[in-house]
C-alpha cells in the first residue's frame, strides 16, 4: 500500500542546507496501521506530508497504492490524493463559516458526489454527532470538532488515512474517545492508517511504529515489523 524507499529532505536556509529527513525506508500493507513517533522537531510531520503527497522528498521515492507519487507533477499527486487519501489534523481545520454537516459534505461535493449531504449526515451519526449537524465549529467543543474532522475524513472513504497528532489539542479523556473512534472506523472501513503522535498509548495501538529522531530512523522497538534501516543510517 505504501512503499517508501530511502527518502531524504533538505531545505536551504540562510545558514546553509538543513537536513530534515535522511534515509527513511518503510513498507505498509493495506489495512495496517503505522505510528510515526519522535520528539518535537524530529521531522514527523514532514514525513507525513511527504507520505501523503503534500510535499516532495529531496531524494528517494514514495509509492501510494502502487503509484509512484514522487515521479508525478502536482496535478498527478492531487489526483492520487483525491482518490486515495484522507486527513485528520491536530487543529481540526474545520471551515468556520460552514456547519458541521457542510464541513463533512464539502470534499464530497467537490468530488461531484450528489449524495454528499446524505453521506455526511451518515458519518456524523457514526461519530455520534447527529444532533449537532447544524452547529458551526465555534459552537462545538474541541472533541466535537475533531469528531467532525474524523467524520469528514472517513466520509470520502479514503484508502489511506493520515492523522497528524489527532489528539494533540485535546485533553486525555477526550483524546482517548477520539482514538477509539479513529481505530473503530479504521477497522470497519478497512482503511490503512498512518498517524503522527507523541502519545505512547496511541502509538502502542498501531501495528507498526517508526521512531525518528533528528530526521533519521532510530533502532526500531521489538514490536515494529517491516521497517528496515536505510543504507545511510
Amino acid at each position, binding site marked *: 500500500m505504501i512503499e517508501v524507499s530511502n527518502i531524504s529532505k533538505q531545505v536551504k536556509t540562510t545558514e546553509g542546507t538543513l537536513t530534515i529527513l535522511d534515509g527513511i525506508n518503510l513498507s505498509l500493507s493495506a489495512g495496517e496501521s503505522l505510528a510515526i513517533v519522535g520528539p518535537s522537531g524530529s521531522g514527523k510531520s514532514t514525513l507525513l506530508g511527504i507520505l501523503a503527497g503534500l*510535499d516532495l522528498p529531496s531524494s528517494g521515492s514514495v509509492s501510494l497504492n502502487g503509484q509512484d507519487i514522487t515521479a508525478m507533477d502536482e496535478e498527478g499527486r492531487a489526483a492520487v490524493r483525491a482518490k486515495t487519501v484522507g486527513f485528520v489534523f491536530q487543529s481540526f481545520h474545520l471551515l468556520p463559516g460552514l456547519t458541521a454537516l457542510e464541513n463533512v459534505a464539502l470534499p464530497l461535493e467537490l468530488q461531484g458526489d450528489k449524495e454528499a449531504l446524505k453521506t455526511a449526515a451518515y458519518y456524523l451519526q457514526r461519530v455520534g454527532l447527529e444532533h449537532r449537524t447544524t452547529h458551526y465549529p465555534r459552537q462545538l467543543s474541541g472533541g466535537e470538532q475533531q469528531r467532525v474532522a474524523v467524520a469528514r475524513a472517513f466520509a470520502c472513504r479514503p484508502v489511506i488515512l493520515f492523522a497528524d497528532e489527532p489528539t494533540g489539542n485535546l485533553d486525555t479523556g477526550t483524546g482517548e474517545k477520539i482514538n477509539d473512534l479513529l481505530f473503530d472506523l479504521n477497522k470497519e472501513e478497512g482503511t490503512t492508517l498512518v498517524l503522527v503522535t507523541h502519545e505512547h498509548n496511541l502509538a502502542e495501538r498501531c501495528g507498526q511504529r517508526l521512531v525518528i529522531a533528528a530526521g533519521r530512523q532510530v533502532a526500531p522497538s521489538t514490536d515494529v515489523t517491516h521497517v528496515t534501516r536505510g543504507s545511510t543510517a
Partner: protein
Amino acid sequence: MQALRMLLRTWRGGQLNLIIWSLVLAVAVVTSVSLLAERIERALTAQSSSFLAADLVVRSSKPIAPEWVAGALQQQVESAQVLTFASMVYHQDDMHLASIKAVEGSYPLRGLLRRTTTPFTTDTSLIEEIDYGPAQGETWVDARLLPLLNIELGDEIELGEIRLTVSQIVVEEPDSGGSYGAFGARVLMNFSDIEAAGIIIPGSRVTYRFLMAEGASGADGFARYSEWMEDQLDVHDRLITPDEAQASIADTMDKGRRFLLLAGSIGVVLAGIALALASHHFAAGQTRQVALLKSWGIAASRVRSLYLQQSLWLGVGGSAIGLLVGFAFSEILIAVVREWLPISLPMAGIRPWITGLATGLLCLAGFTLPAIWHLPAQSPLAVLRDDVKVEPVSSMARGFLGVIAVAALLFWYSNNVYLSLAILAGFGLTTLATVVIGLLMLRVGKTYGEKLGSIWRLASSNLWRRRSQSIIQMVGFSGAIALLMIMSVVRTSLIDEWRWQLADDAPNHFLLNVAPYELEGVRDLVTAQNLETAGWYSMVRGRLTQINGEGITEEQRDKHESFRRELNLSWTTALPEGNKVTAGKWWDELDLSGDIAPVSLEEELAGELGLEIGDLLNFSVGGLIFQARVASTRSLNWDNMTPNFYFLFPEGLLENYPRTSMTSLYIPPQQKLLVNDLLRQYPTVQVIELDKIIDRIRSIVSQVTSGLEVMTLLILSCGVLVMFAAVSLSMSERLQESAILRTLGSSRRLILGIQWVEFSVLGVMAGLLAAIGAEAAVALLQHYMFDLPFSWHPWLWLMGPLAGGLLVGVLGVGYSRKAVTQPPLLVLNSL
C-alpha cells in the same frame, strides 16, 4: 453550482461582508449618480428647450422666409413665428414705449406661459399655466402697463392702426429667461394682428424669431430639418440652441453636475480602496481553506476555477444588489431635487445600468482578483505547517492593477481628464507621502515612544513591528480622508460661490441711461424707498467706426449688432472685480502717456467682432472721433449681477464726452411699483428687470445644494466603509495579542489604551498626510474644473489629523473592545 454554494456559505459565515458591501456601494454610488445625471441631463434639455420655448430658434433681422415655414410643415416639424420690437401703445392721453411681442398660435412650442387676472400677484394659485398665446384682437400685458396707461383688464389699448383688448396679465414667458433686453412693459399679441396694425414697415427695427421643435417626424425628422435649415442661414440669421438660451443658469447647473461627477468618482475610488482592503483581508483568510482543498486532491486549476466562478457570482450578485440600492438612492436624490425638475422627469436609458454593472465587474477585476490570484498556488502542506505560505501578488503589482482599474473607471465614468487626473494625483500623492513619510513617522514614533509610558511604548513598537500592515492601513485611512477632504472643500467653495445667489438682496434690477441732470433725482427716488444701489458707474455711448483705418463694411454690420448700434464705453483705473485679463496687458503694465489710448475688450465679443490685440479702433462719440488700440481682453463674471462693460478705457479720456450713469440694485417685490414711478418721471431711463430670473436661479441653486448634501452623505458612508475595511485588516492579530495580554493579567485600561494609541496615531498621521494630497487635488480641481481661485485651506491641516485621529481611534477601539469584554479563550477560539 459548487462555486455558488461555496460563495453563499462563505457569505453566511460573514467573511464576505466587507467585500460585498464595498462592491454594492461602488455600484450603488455609480448607478445612482449616473441615473441622476442622465435623468437630470434629459430634464435639463427639456428645461432648456423651455427657456427657448422651442428646441431650436433662428433669430433674424429680416422676415422669416416662407419656405422655412413650408419646409417645417412638410417635414412634420413644429414651428412658430415670433416678432419683437419696441412701439408706442396708447390709452387715451397716456402712452408707453412698450416691448411688443407678436406670437403665432402654436407659441410656445416648449415650456408654458404664465398668466393671471390679478395684477402684481405672487400667489401661485391665481396664476395659470398655459401653452398658447393671446387670441386675435386680444393682448396680454405686463402688470405694470396697467398703472402706466391707467387701464384695467378689459380696456382697449391702441397699437398703430388697431385696438387690442387687454384680457390677461402676462406673468412669465418661457423664453424671457435669458433676455436682459426688455426695456419697456411687455405687450403680448397675436401674430395675425400685425399686418392690420400696419406698424412694421421696411427698415423697422424688428427681431424675427423662427421657433422649431420636434414634431410628428420625431427626432430624426427634426435633425434632418435642422440640418437643412442650417444651410439656409445667411449673415442676418443666427441659430440659437437650448444651451445658449439657459446661459444664465448654465454655470450653476454645470458646476452642480461636475460636483455630482466628482462626488461619484470619489465614491468609486473610495469603494475601490475598500474593496482592495477587504479582498486583501479575505484572501489572507482563505489560504488555509485552499490548502485544505488541495490536500483533498483538488487541483490548482480547479481551485482557480472555483475562485474565479465565485468572483463572477460575487460580481454579478453584488452588482445586482448595487444596482437596486443605486436606483433607490437616485429616487431619494430625485425626491430632494424634484422641485426644479420638470413634472414629468424622463426615465433614464440603459447606460447608467451598464455603467453600474461594469463598475462592479471592473472593481472586482482590478481589486479582488489580484488579491486572490495567488491562492491556487498555495501549497497543500500548509495544512500541516503554518509557515508554508505562498507569496501573494506583490503590493506593487496589485497597486498598479488597482490604479489602472480606478483610472479606467474614472475616465470612463467622468469623461473628464482634469477631474480624473486631479483625483489620481491627489490619491497618488497621498499614497506616496504615506509610504515615505509614514514609515519615517513610525520609525520616529518608535524611538520616542520607548521613552514614554508602557502604553505608548507597546503601541509604538507594535506599529513599527507591523509596519507593512500599518502602512497599508494608513494608505486606506489617508486615501479616504483625502478624498473626503477634496469633496468637502469643493462643495464648500461652490456653496460659498453660490451664496450671493441665495442672498435675498442680490441686485435684481439694472438702471441704465441715467443722464447727469437726472442722477440726483433718481438717486433720491431710490433712497426714498430705503433701497441701496451697487454704486453708480458712468458710461459714454459711442459707435465703432473704423478698424485699423478701414470703415465698417455692410457685411460686418449685418453680422453683428455691435457694428450697428451705439456701444457702452466706460472707464476705470483698477480691473473691476470678477474681471480677468485673458490676453494683453492691463493699464498698470502700459505706458498711458501715449497719443493713442488703450482699450480693454470682453474676450468673447472681441472674438465675435474679429478684433485682436494691437488693432487700432476709431470711435465716434456724438460726432467726435477718437482712436484707441486694443490692449487687452478680459473675461467677465456674469454671475455677480453688478454692471459689466464690454469696452473699458483708462481714466482721463472719456470724462468730457456726454455721459450717462448706470447701477444695479435690489428691489423687493412689494416695492416693484418703484419701476413705474421711475419710468414715469424719467422716461428715458432704461430699467432691466432680472427679478424673475434671479428667483429662478435662487430656487435652482438651493435645490442643487440640497442634492449635493445628500450625495455628500452617500460618499461619507463610502469613506466610513474604507475605514472599517482598513481597521479590520489587522484585527485578528490585534485581538489575539490582546487576548494573550489579557490572559497574562493585563488591565482593560492597558489593552484599550494600546489600541487607542495605535489607531489614533495611525489616524493622526493619515489625516496629516491626507491634507497634502487633498490640497494638491483641490488646487487642480479648482483651477481646471470649477474655475475657482486657488486658496490654501489651513483647516485641512488642522482638521485632517484631528478628525483622522478621532475617527480611526474610535473605530479601532470600538472594533477591538471584544478583546476586553469577552473571556480571552472565547476570543482566541473565534479567530
